[in-house]
């Protein structure tokens, strides 16, 4: 493992994005749209029912946006390499797949940090919600949202690394797979029992639930915070292994066939 090679890939991706305005603005745009939709929907519910839900749902929207947008960004970087036919250049160089995975993770930290700051500022300006009011809980939660983003990113990337750009649509479908089961904007109790079982097996549910519970009640449910770490750890290992296996499987057929 050579970190400077991984960092070369990360900075290469950053350079590409900075020079690509549509690509640069897309994650911020879609995250903002989600925030606005959820925020105003929550404001409407609050004004009509009196239930104090705006801050909890805005917080959930920020958490989910970090998870899904950063996850999509990681998969998008792979798709860009495929569209550019650059995978052959990369993997005929000394770069290993582990270094590429580390590069994606490093990129994810930067993307998550930028997106978090942008969404926090937007939520404060539009809905008066200060995400930093969660105090020290912010640190474990952000770590978990970042880990969930990696899980989503590597899961979504595992298809195009074998099937190529023709499965681009599935990348987005996979990225949103966890959303209905994560209880983002509703309580788990409104879901059918089978869906609740699935939700209890997902780190995204626990991650968002800890945040919402804290915003609504001021209490920290420590066992759920622990579950988030545990499940994120398990899922991250599983999805990283899956991605690496799909890469090795793809090499058996030849990476050049993925050329666009």
């Amino acid at each position, binding site marked *: 493992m*050579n970190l*400077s*090679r991984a*960092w*070369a*890939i990360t*900075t*290469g991706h950053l*350079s*590409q994005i900075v*020079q*690509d305005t549509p690509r640069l603005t897309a994650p911020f745009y879609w995250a903002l749209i989600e925030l606005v939709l959820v925020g105003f929907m929550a404001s409407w519910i609050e004004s009509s029912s009196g239930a104090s839900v705006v801050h909890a749902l805005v917080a959930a929207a920020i958490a989910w946006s970090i998870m899904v947008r950063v996850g999509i960004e990681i998969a998008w970087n792979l798709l*860009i*390499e495929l569209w*550019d*036919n*650059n*995978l*052959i*250049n*990369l*993997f*005929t*160089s*000394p*770069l*290993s797949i582990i270094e590429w995975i580390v590069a994606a993770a490093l990129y994810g930290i930067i993307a998550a940090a930028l997106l978090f700051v942008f969404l926090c500022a937007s939520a404060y300006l539009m809905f008066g919600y200060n995400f930093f009011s969660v105090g020290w809980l912010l640190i474990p939660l952000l770590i978990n949202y970042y880990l969930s983003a990696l899980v989503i990113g590597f899961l979504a990337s595992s298809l195009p690394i074998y*099937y190529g750009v*023709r*499965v681009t649509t599935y990348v987005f479908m996979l990225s949103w797979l966890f959303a209905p089961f994560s209880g983002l904007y509703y309580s788990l109790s409104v879901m059918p029992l089978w869906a609740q079982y699935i939700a209890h097996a997902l780190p995204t549910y626990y991650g968002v639930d800890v945040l919402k519970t804290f915003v609504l009640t001021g209490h920290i449910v420590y066992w759920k915070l622990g579950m988030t770490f545990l499940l994120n750890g398990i899922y991250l290992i599983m999805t990283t292994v899956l991605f690496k296996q799909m890469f*090795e499987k793809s*090499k*058996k*057929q*030849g*990476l*050049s066939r993925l*050329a666009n």
Partner: protein
Amino acid sequence: MSVLSVRDLIKVYPGKKSFFSRKEAKPFIAVNGISFALQEGEILGFLGPNGAGKTTTIQMLLSILTPTSGHIEYFGKNFFRHRSEILEKVGFASTYVKLPGNLTLYENMDTFGRLYGLSHVQRIDSIKQNLRYFGLWDLRDKKTRALSAGESTRAMLSKAFLARPRVVLLDEPTAALDPDVAQDVRVFVREQREQYGVSFLFTSHNMNEVTELCSRVLVLQRGNIIADNTPAQLAESVAKTKIELSIKQEHQEDFIAYLNAHNMPYTQRGFFVAIPIKEEDIAAFLYQLSLKGIVYTSISIEKPKLEDYFLQLSKRQRGVL
């Protein structure tokens, strides 16, 4: 000393149904147990008709395709165990592979320089030197997607030589280049071999180029190496040197009689008579003519070409011969 050693390399694409395409593929043997070695400072040509297994082999030598079985060693080290360490010393360029279009040429070179383990100072020196050699220095701030086909190929060559490689795999490197630039590339390849002892594995459909550059040629057909020889000897294996003489009218009869007496086949076109003959027999043949007093007014010698060999090979693969 061999810098690359390949033993019993096999690639079989198994026949199976794809989930997305729903087409059933039959098992296909792309490379069928080939073995060869590339010596230090050697330029080894890799020839064969389309589908012979050249690209498949090169892909396995670069680790972007996993072999079904076999051994690959670079510099005496197992390629699969020391992949990253080995690839720091192996350059690759292909006309059919491009650099990411959204980065400038310099940014691309810098990224690859870092992947190949060059320090900041080494990168600055090497990028400047290579881009200048390939006539791309003035285009360094241009996005690579805006480069022409020839410029893209030269950019790939610059990338291949960025880290002072010991072995370079070139897949049709001059296919998209103008003749003068292609000549510059050939000169560069020779310089790299002579000055730094760089070894090359070289595929090309330009037979003159292969003849000019390669000291040895491996010929692949249907995944097997069917010949391993110098370009000249490969050419001679399918055709003889042809000597064409313009004979004075008064000597024509004697000349034809001489050819018939020595069972030498010939073709006649007016005053011109063409005779297939071994290259080493030409001097003795001309001497005999002078002894017989047969006078010729012009002479041309046509050597067999590697292209003749390749054409015959292609015809054989297509079942024409």
